[in-house]
C-alpha cells in the first residue's frame, strides 16, 4: 500500500506540468470566451438599441437575455473541455509508452521495484482518475468565476443568472462529465475507468507480444465490448424487452465488474510473466 501511494505520488509529479497546462488552457480559453461572448452580445444590443433605435424591451423580446448557456455552448467553453478529454485520452497511452520509448528506459526501474508489479498498473490508472477528477473539479471551481466575469460585463436587465446545476442539466453533454447525482457519478466514472482498464490491458498485451500483442489487444477490447453490450443486446433483440430497467442496470454492472476483474488479472499476469523491456 505504501509503495502504491509512493508510486501514485511519483506518477502525479510526472504529469504535473501537462496537468497544469491543461488547467491553464481551460481557464484562459473559457475566460476569453466569456469576454468575447459578452462583448458580442453587448455590441449587438448597442447596435440594435442605439443604431437601429430598438427599445430595450423590444430587443429583449426578440433576442432574449444573455445567459451563461450561450457561453457554455460556444467553442470557447466546450473547446477546452474537448481538448482536456483528448489530452487525458492521449495520456492513457503516453503514461505507459513514455517509459519505454527513446531515451526513457524508466520501465527497467519500475519493473525492478521491490513491490508487486500490479502496483504500477494501479498507480497509473489512479493518476488517470486523479487527472480526470482534477479537471472536472477545476471546471466546477471556474464556472462561478466565469459567471462573475459575465455579471461584471453584462448589465443586470440584459442577463439571466443561472446556477451551475441549471447549466449542467440544460446541457446533456456537460452532464456526462459533471454528473448531478452520486449514482450517475459512479456509473459514468466507473464506465470510464473500465474503458481505461481495457485499454491498459491492450497496451500491456502490445508491450508483451509486440505485433501479435496489437491483434490480441484489439481482440480483447472487442470481446470486452461484446460482453459489456450483451445484456442490452439480449434485452433488445432476443428477449424482447424481458428485463426491468433496474435488472438491466444490475446486469450491466455485473458485466462491467467481470470485465474489470479480468482486465486487472490479465494486466497483473502480463506484468509479472510476459512483459519485455
Amino acid at each position, binding site marked *: 500500500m505504501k*509503495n502504491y501511494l*509512493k508510486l501514485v505520488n*511519483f506518477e502525479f509529479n*510526472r504529469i504535473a506540468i501537462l496537468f497544469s497546462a491543461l488547467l491553464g488552457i481551460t481557464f484562459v480559453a473559457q475566460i476569453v470566451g466569456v469576454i468575447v461572448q459578452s462583448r458580442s452580445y453587448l455590441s449587438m444590443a448597442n447596435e440594435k438599441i442605439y443604431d437601429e433605435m430598438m427599445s430595450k424591451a423590444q430587443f429583449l423580446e426578440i433576442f432574449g437575455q444573455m445567459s451563461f448557456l450561450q457561453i457554455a455552448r460556444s467553442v470557447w467553453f466546450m473547446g477546452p473541455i474537448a481538448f482536456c478529454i483528448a489530452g487525458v485520452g492521449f495520456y492513457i497511452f503516453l503514461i505507459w509508452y513514455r517509459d519505454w520509448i527513446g*531515451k*526513457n*528506459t*524508466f520501465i*527497467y*526501474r519500475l*519493473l*525492478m*521495484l*521491490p*513491490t*508487486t*508489479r500490479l502496483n504500477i498498473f494501479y498507480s497509473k490508472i489512479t493518476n488517470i482518475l486523479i487527472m480526470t477528477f482534477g479537471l472536472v473539479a477545476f471546471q466546477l471551481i471556474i464556472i462561478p468565476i466565469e459567471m462573475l466575469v459575465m455579471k461584471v460585463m453584462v448589465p443586470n436587465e440584459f442577463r439571466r443568472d443561472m446556477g451551475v446545476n441549471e447549466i449542467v442539466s440544460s446541457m446533456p453533454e456537460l452532464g456526462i462529465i459533471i454528473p448531478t447525482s452520486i449514482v450517475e457519478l459512479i456509473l459514468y466514472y466507473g464506465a470510464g475507468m473500465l474503458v481505461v482498464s481495457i485499454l491498459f490491458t491492450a497496451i500491456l498485451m502490445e508491450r*508483451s507480444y509486440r505485433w501479435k500483442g496489437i491483434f490480441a489487444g484489439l481482440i480483447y477490447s472487442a470481446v470486452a465490448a461484446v460482453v459489456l453490450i450483451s445484456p442490452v443486446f439480449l434485452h433488445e433483440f432476443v428477449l424482447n424487452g424481458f428485463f426491468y430497467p433496474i435488472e438491466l442496470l444490475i446486469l450491466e454492472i455485473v458485466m462491467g465488474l467481470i470485465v474489470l476483474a479480468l482486465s486487472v488479472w490479465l494486466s497483473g499476469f502480463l506484468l*509479472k*510473466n*510476459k*512483459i*519485455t*523491456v
Partner: protein
Amino acid sequence: MIEVKAVEKKFGRKKILKGVSFTANKGEITCLIGINGVGKTTILNAIMALTPINKGQILIDGKRLDKTTFEKITFIPDVITMLPQMTIAEAMEFMNDFYTCWNQERATELLEFFRLNLSDRIASLSKGNTAKVNLLLGLALDVDYVLMDEPFSGIDMFSREEIANVFTSHLIENRGVIITTHEVGDIEHLIDKVVLLDDGIVTKEFSAEEARENEGKSVIDVMREVYKR
C-alpha cells in the same frame, strides 16, 4: 547462488538462447562473454524477469524471483534506469524511497568516488558519467547479487579505469557479480569465473584462476581457442 537452468528464449522465430545453463556464486565475479547478439543481455534481463523465457528455470538462492528478490539482487543495465529530467539527488531519493536496502552512506561514498554532482541532471551527463550514475544507483543497494550489462561500453579510458577500480574495492566484496563485457582486458585479472556463449549455448564455463594456474592461459587465450575453432 544464481542458477540458470536450460534457459531457452525465442524472439519471433529466431531462437536466441538454446538451453543456456550456468551458475554464479556469491562472492565471485562471473563474466558472460560472447559476440554481439549471442544473448548476453537477454540472459541478464531474464534473470531479472524483464523478459520472459520460453523454457528453463532461473533460481536465486534456490527460489524463483518474486518482488522481495529485488531487495537481494540488482541489475545495472547499459541504459539509464532513471528519468532523464531527474537530478542525481532526486534519483537517489527515489531509490531511498522504494528500497529498504538502500545504503545512503555508500551512495555518498560512491558519489565522491565517481566525482559526481548531486545537482546535475541525468540528461545533461556524458555517457561515462551516466554509466557511473547507473553504477552508483545499483551498488548503493545492500544486495547480495549485482548484474552488470556492458559497464565499459562506449566509455572513455579514464572512466573505464574508475569503473574497473570499483571491482577491486569493498563496494563489490562478498557480492555475487555477473558481468557482460566486450572489454575483458579491463577486468580480466578480477574475474573468478568465465561463461563463454556462442550460438545460444554455453560453449565453455571455467574458473579464470584455474586456467591461469593449471594451463597458464589468460581468459583471452581461452577465448581465442574457443572462438577461433
